[in-house]
């Protein structure tokens, strides 16, 4: 039983990482209706940039700031160059444009920083916590717990930002109704620039934590794809959904790998979340917390 809980907790904590990536998707989708496929590439780019700046000998807080500035630049440039010419196009066109953006950002990241894996050392130790190991006989990494705490703080900060600042109110207005927001004088394009920067910030935090775990490497973009079933499960428009979905996906995928995997030869972690999401969709197409969609002819 202890082993079961150990796997479960490990899964939940890795689910937190998926939630972080999914959060970036949700933010942009809510505010601009764009399904930003490039979020995974942005995580990769952010992780590489952060690691690259650290390698130059810059202290971590400054490197974080520097990477954040780069992500803001990327967000604003995306808004300018990609989204502005595509205003009023169908959502599917915008989605495909973000796939193009994915390729561009991946290429850019590797040209700028090289394709080799970079280590990120945040100074947090990746060791089992002795107290839990002694009393409950379970291995729970202190790094994972710290990452979960950081994710929790991030969500709280974002929630406060959305709820209590002027920009946050404007963001929510835009998310509700573009035209209405525009007509009461909210500058749509600024808002989109800001939301892409915020998504860049989230990508940076996610990339930093993932990178510290597994190194800043190209595989990050695949890990980020796992955020898609998370979104399906949680619903595209719900921040809470991204968190809960991430936890569900993370835990079930680890449990399935450990308990079902050996029966079919292992490696099912790669597709299990998608199939889970698929079956979930058959029952509840709008996700756990998504808005119910009513079709009108």
């Amino acid at each position, binding site marked *: 039983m202890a082993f079961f809980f150990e796997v479960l907790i490990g899964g939940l904590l890795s689910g937190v990482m998926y939630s972080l990536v999914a959060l970036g998707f949700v933010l942009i989708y809510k505010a601009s209706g764009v399904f930003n496929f490039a979020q995974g590439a942005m995580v990769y780019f952010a992780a590489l940039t952060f690691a690259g700046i650290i390698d130059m000998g810059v202290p971590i807080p400054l490197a974080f700031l520097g990477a954040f500035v780069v992500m803001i630049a990327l967000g604003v440039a995306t808004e300018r160059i*990609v989204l502005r*010419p595509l205003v009023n196009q169908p959502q599917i066109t915008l*989605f*495909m444009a973000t*796939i*193009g*953006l994915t390729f561009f950002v991946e290429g850019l990241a590797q*040209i700028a920083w090289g394709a080799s894996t970079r280590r990120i050392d945040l100074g947090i130790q990746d060791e089992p916590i002795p107290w839990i190991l002694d009393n409950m006989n379970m291995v729970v990494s202190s790094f994972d717990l710290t990452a979960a705490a950081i994710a929790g703080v991030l969500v709280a900060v974002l929630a406060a930002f959305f709820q209590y600042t002027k920009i946050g109110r404007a963001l929510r207005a835009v998310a509700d109704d573009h035209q209405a927001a525009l007509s009461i004088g909210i500058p749509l394009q600024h808002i989109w620039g800001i939301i892409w920067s915020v998504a860049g910030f989230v990508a940076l935090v996610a990339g930093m934590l993932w990178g510290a775990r597994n190194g800043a490497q190209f595989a990050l973009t695949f890990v980020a794809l796992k955020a898609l079933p998370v979104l399906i499960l949680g619903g595209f428009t719900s921040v809470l959904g991204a968190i809960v979905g991430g936890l569900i996906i993370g835990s079930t995928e680890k449990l399935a790998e450990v308990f079902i995997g050996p029966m079919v030869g292992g490696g099912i972690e790669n597709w299990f979340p998608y199939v889970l999401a*698929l079956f979930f*969709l058959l029952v509840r197409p709008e996700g756990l917390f998504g808005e119910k969609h009513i079709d009108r002819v």
Partner: protein
Amino acid sequence: MFYRETGQFKTSYGADQQIFPIRQDRIAIGLLLVFAFFVVPAVATQYWFSAILIPFLIFSLAALGLNILTGYAGQLSLGSAAFMAVGAFGAYNFILRVPEIPAILAFLMGGVCAAGVGILFGLPSLRIKGFYLAVATLAAQFFVVWALTKFGWFSNYSSSGVISSQDFSVFGFAIDSPVRKYLLTLSIVAIMGLLAKNMARSNTGRSWMAVRDMDVAAEVIGIPLMKTKLLAFAVSSFYCGVAGALVAYCYLGTVEPDYFTLDLSFRILFMVIIGGVGTILGSFFGAAFIVLLPIFLNIVLHPLFAILGIEISSAVVSNMELMVFGGLIIFFLAVEPHGLARLWQIGKEKLRIWPFPH
């Protein structure tokens, strides 16, 4: 002046509904086919066949398949490479396990296997649409590649799931040289292309378009949604499956499940976008563009940097390729969302009134 349909009167329904209603189009298509079947084999070199022409034709077929699903029936799919994989491994197993099976039949059966898998993964489309569906098709992508790698039966227990195409012959001709492979591919693609063109203007194609434009409205006017959507998945996967079989037998010869990655699915999607969503011709334009672009960039970038005196590694070139690729996608979507096929149409309109624009 030359491209004008004035004076071509249709006197029967048959004439009015033919696939190419304009005489000049019929002549052009005929000339193109004659050129591709007789002139090209005589002049093209080995390199042209195996690096450009055959992949172009095969990817046109795959893009055609995806275009049927995404462009005509409006169901976005990110799993086309998986269906190609099913086709390739299906054809391999039919040739391996059924004695004396004609190769063409095996390819088609590979396509049928892909169609079956397509229907299975198309089932969610009855409940969900748009991005949700796109993500759902990712399940097909990852699951199929995993299954083909994990279960040795599919690849006859070869190491890491690699299959090597057996020698095969069609109507008594051994398909062993690039020219013959080219001719076989060309025949299949030409026939399936015409079939698709025909299908697009038939009852089936029009129901697909109705579902694409608004599925609720389509249902109200009496189009059975389930049948139409699943048929689109089946036909699309069939095309992708045959393309996959051709990849294994006419293009690469040796292929492993990992060839059919998500990246390939994206490339096929890009062919559809750049070529033109919802056009048959566009699939061919898109495939040509995507196949030729890396070759072109390779030819252009190396001398360019040599002139500038910068040493660059091939890794940088491939990354620049990625960037140009992504940039072009965005550029195309912004400038011409309807793709190269739309440019072609504009050109035809211009040609029709040339040289008197009024």
